[in-house]
Structures are given as structure tokens and as C-alpha cells.
């Protein structure tokens, strides 16, 4: 039968030699400082940067359309779409970025750190979820409108009136359908990526708070 004090002695007698074998020197520490963090917050930041990059590329592609078609109407619609999509996304990305920058609280006590991490991660995921849900119909509607308008301006869809109420209603319906579809998809996606981690943090905090 092993006594816990014996375990402590076993630990003390052996841990130093075990640690000594894994010692790193100053140069190795210096190299580590330049390494990329695998921390969840840094990964969220990295994902956000990729998201912003892809978004900017899409906007640039839209901005290139008028140069290709040389039509005044097309240029106006493109600029309008860029402006209308860019502004809400800009606020969305700034909000997300600011939230992520608030995360660093590793020097707090474990309990405070877990409380802060949970609160901030929940807030961030809420912004992520509702931001995506809100922006889906806006993007869907504007994209559908821009495509139809440009096709008409270029001589296609001759018997088609873009500003017709019926057409606008269909586009609105299409956007709402897109939103309805994106709701479960986004819920699943966010839960898969970060939900389990959040649950784990909540379990740790719950355990830390448990008395009996």
C-alpha cells in the first residue's frame, strides 16, 4: 500500500533528474520566443486575419468588374455593393478583433482566468454567430441584386426589371432562405470549432467552485 507522503518523496527524489534531462539552453529559449503560438486565442486571431484576407480579395474582384465591362451602370452598382457590404463587415471585423485582443489574462489566478476566458469566449462566439447570421441576408440580397443588375446592364435579361417589387421580394426571400440555412450550419460550425473547448473551460470552473 502506498502512502501519499511516500509519493511526495518519490516525486522529490526523481523529478529533478527527470527535469534536468529536458533542460533547454538560452539559445533554444530565444528560438522559442520566435515560434508561432498554438494558443486558441492566437488561432482565432489567425483565422480572423484569413477571413479578412478572403473578404478583401472578394471585394477586389468585385471592384475589378467595371474595368472589364466598361459600363457606367455596372461601375455604380459595384461601388454601391462594395460600400454596402464593406461597412457592416468592417464594423463586424473590428468588433471581433477588439474582443480577441482583450483575451490575455494568463497571469491572473486560475479561477479569475477561467471566468474571464469563458465570459470573453462566449461574447466572441456570440458576435461571431449573430454577425454571420445578420450579414448573410445582407450579402445574399446585395449579391443577387448586383448580379441581376449587371446582367441587365450588359444586355442580358432584356425582359427583366430589377426594381420590380416581385423580383425584389424573390431576392429577399432568397436571402432569408440563405439565412435560415446558415443558422444551423453556423451553430454546428462554431460548436465544432470552439464549443467543446468552451465546455471544457466551464467544467474546469465548475469543478474549481465545487465544495462538496
Amino acid at each position, binding site marked *: 500500500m502506498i502512502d501519499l507522503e511516500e509519493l511526495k518523496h*518519490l516525486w522529490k527524489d526523481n523529478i529533478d533528474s527527470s527535469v534536468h534531462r529536458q533542460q533547454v539552453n538560452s539559445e533554444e529559449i530565444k528560438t522559442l520566443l520566435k515560434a508561432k*503560438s498554438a494558443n486558441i486565442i492566437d488561432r482565432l486571431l489567425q483565422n480572423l486575419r484569413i477571413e479578412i484576407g478572403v473578404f478583401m480579395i472578394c471585394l477586389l474582384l468585385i471592384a475589378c468588374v467595371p474595368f472589364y465591362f466598361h459600363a457606367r451602370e455596372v461601375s455604380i452598382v459595384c461601388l454601391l455593393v462594395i460600400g454596402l457590404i464593406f461597412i457592416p463587415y468592417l464594423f463586424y471585423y473590428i468588433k471581433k478583433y477588439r474582443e480577441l485582443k482583450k483575451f490575455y489574462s494568463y497571469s491572473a489566478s486560475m479561477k479569475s482566468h477561467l471566468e474571464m*476566458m469563458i465570459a470573453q469566449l462566449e461574447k466572441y462566439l456570440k458576435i461571431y454567430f449573430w454577425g454571420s447570421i445578420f450579414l448573410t441576408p445582407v450579402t445574399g440580397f446585395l449579391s443577387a441584386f448586383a448580379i441581376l443588375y449587371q446582367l441587365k446592364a450588359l444586355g442580358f435579361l432584356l425582359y427583366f426589371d430589377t426594381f420590380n417589387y416581385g423580383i425584389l421580394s424573390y431576392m429577399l426571400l432568397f436571402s432569408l432562405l440563405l439565412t435560415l440555412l446558415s443558422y444551423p450550419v453556423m451553430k454546428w460550425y462554431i460548436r465544432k470549432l470552439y464549443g467543446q473547448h468552451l465546455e471544457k473551460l466551464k467544467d474546469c470552473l465548475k469543478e474549481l467552485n465545487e465544495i462538496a
Partner: protein
Amino acid sequence: MVAVNTEQLFIQTINQHQGIIHKVCRMYCSGQEDHHDLFQEIVLQLWKAFPGFRQESKISTWMYRIALNTAISGLRKKKIQTTGIDAIAFQLEDRQEENPEVGLQQLYKAIEHLSDVEKSIVLLYLEDKPYDEIAEITGITANYVAVKMNRIKEKLRTILNVRP
């Protein structure tokens, strides 16, 4: 110049106290690769927090806080394969007298059956930290630490005393 000095001071601090990081890594990782990843992550988090260290607490307390917080919440961990409880008890009792290193390995295997929070408290206990310091690191009261420690001891006793 200031940045270089800060970096030198940091490297010097890590050199002196890297045992703390290795012990935390050993507690939370079973494989060498995981150990290396967590070690790197803890060093990075310490480096980020280093300019904010005001020496209000001991450097070791500060390091334990960051290292344990990183181990618990920073990384999404892979599922670790744990040995069966019966096997641990059998191996620990029979082999630790032959080779203490083997006994230590079995202690780690027993620790794998603890939760992440329990691991942090047991590490601080094994390191002979007083309950006040454990309370400072974990953020719960010293009395509460004592209650938790008793429960962990019971759990470890159950794990280590079960016979095949």
C-alpha cells in the same frame, strides 16, 4: 536596447526556473511531442506577460499561474490514452522498489486519471507549496484547497490501492 535587456532578463529567468514549466508539462502531457508543444506555448505566454510582472508575488507563483492557466485553457488537447487503474496499482507496488524512476512513471499514470484542476493542485502539493500559495495560484481559499486536497488524496488512494 531596453527590449534586448528585457529579453535577456526573461531568458535568464526562464533558465533559472524552467523546472516549473517542465513539471507542469510533465503533469499534463504524456508524449514528448505534446510536452514540447506545451513547453513552447507556456514560454510564449510568459514572454507576453513578462512586461506586466510587477513582483507583487513570487516569480515562481507568477510562473505557476501562467503555466497552469496555459495548460488548462490555452490549448485544445488531444485525448490521452490512460492505463487501467488496476494495472497502475499492481505495477506501482511491485516495481517501485526495483527502480524509483519506474515508480515515478506509474505515479504519472495515476495522475492521468485526475481532472485538469486536480492535476494542478496535486502538482503544487507534490512541490510542497503551502495551502496559502496554492490558494493564490488557483484563486480559491486556503480552506477550500484543503478540502480539495483531501478529496484528491482519497481519489489517489483509491487509484493506487486497487489490486488486480
